[in-house]
């Protein structure tokens, strides 16, 4: 268990940041925020890259390739679509 102390500490702190960072969100931002944070969760892409990059079995490589593809869809699609949704707030600088 000892080796888990640090990752768990990091996890707990990061979770707190996550909890606190989101306080009040106007409803129009619900979908963009969901989409944006979903894109962030595509961070598994780095896990996928490591996995496929260091894989030695074909299964692992195939799985890894799929993982990279899936994660990249999530990341690229997610950020781009969020940006598209947020275009409507361009006028936000009016104030």
């Amino acid at each position, binding site marked *: 268990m000892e080796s*888990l102390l640090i*990752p768990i500490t990091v*996890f*707990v702190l990061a*979770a707190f940041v*996550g*909890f606190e*960072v*989101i306080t009040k*969100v*106007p*409803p*129009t*931002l*619900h*979908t963009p*925020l*969901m*989409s*944006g944070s*979903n894109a*962030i*969760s*595509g*961070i*598994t*892409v*780095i*896990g*996928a*890259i*490591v*996995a496929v*990059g*260091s*894989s*030695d079995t074909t*299964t*692992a*490589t195939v*799985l*890894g390739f799929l*993982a*990279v*593809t*899936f994660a*990249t*869809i*999530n*990341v*690229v*699609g*997610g*950020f*781009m679509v969020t940006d598209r949704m*947020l275009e409507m707030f*361009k*006028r*936000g*600088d009016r104030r």
Partner: protein
Amino acid sequence: MNITLQGFLYLLAAVLFIVGLKRLTSPATARTGNRFASIGMLLAIVVTLLDAGIIGYGAVIAGLVVGAAIGAYLARTVEMTAMPQLVAAFNGFGGGASALVALSALATEPDSDTRTLVTIGISVLIGALTFSGSFVAFGKLQGVLGGQSITFPGQIVVDSLLAIAGVAGVIALATSGSMLWAWILIAVAFALGITRTLPIGGADMPVVISFLNSASGLAASAAGFVIDSNALIISGALVGAAGLILTNIMVKAMNRTLANVLFSVFGAGSAAVADDGTEKVTRSASADDVAVTLAYAERVVVVPGYGLAVAQAQHVLRELAALLESKGVEVRYAIHPVAGRMPGHMNVLLAEADVDYELLYDLEDINGDFPRTDVALVVGANDVVNPSARDDSTSPIYGMPVLDVDRAGNVIVIKRSLSPGFAGIDNPLFYNENTLMFFADAKEGIGEIVGAVKEL
């Protein structure tokens, strides 16, 4: 690349995610926030690619290119109205990726220690569940599966069995380290994702997606534990927690609880059955929705009616107008000749609230302006904004001139229910695509909107 430097760069990426998320919560900063987060992601990917441990770039590059192409294509081409299901689909891919990472780790090192195997099991379970659940949500929103809640007898029994099987699968995987168990686990998780999402109605789907998004964050975090990557742990935890909070906010805005949404088989949308037996659906809004819609408008026309008088909401209405004006929104009032219950009823109210006479417009003077109006805010008016007086020659009020609010970009109607007004007839305006209903007493409701606008 130096492993320490790599660590610090990952930390920087995580910081960019945090800052990005934070900025995503306010309309004024949301766009840059999204960019911050995407820069963080780019950084993380580049750093990973430079990792000394990577030997075969082929599959990596292939995956990146294929994924980026698909993602970009979908993000570009999908209709704005299809956004929710697109997010659902992306979310599904993310969950799937987490499960695959864990699987691939298992394939590479089947003889990992128990802790790693447990984490792999959890990662697979959550990831696969997110994948199937998200795609069911996608299907529902896309209309492929029908918006209604789909249930079957014995639902609870099946769900419970699947859940138990999932836990058992994780344990079996952890003790055996066998790929077979992993596949079984995937199957179970898949099934669970489907049976748990199907019964939830279309209107509740955004909540489900948000919840699954949170879950996919946790899956990423679990993957981080597997490959011992702080970047994954932090980002995953961040998304997991933020997603949970967001889910909660959404659920609260619907006046529900999360358990209620996830486990109620009656999660249908709010639909009203019209006189003619067909089902008409209204879009109902919260004070926050109304606040954002108003605050980001350029031209607002307020249409007061008898309900304003009943609620004695004139003072708070004026305050809302003043607040909007201070934000640069143009606010005018359209006074229908027979609004209220006596000639000049609205004049009395608005004069009491000291609304400038210059801002009051007669029907003839304002009707042409509605197509150029961003938001028509209908406060306790009903008959005087009933388009059937204009369009439906069978209507008992056909021929009465009405305010053409339905020609405005958005219509917000504040009233307590769908009950009819003086004329006792239904109002098709309420079921229009561009109409948002805010069900509230006018005084209380506008009070809430004022509060919400102040907090924008």
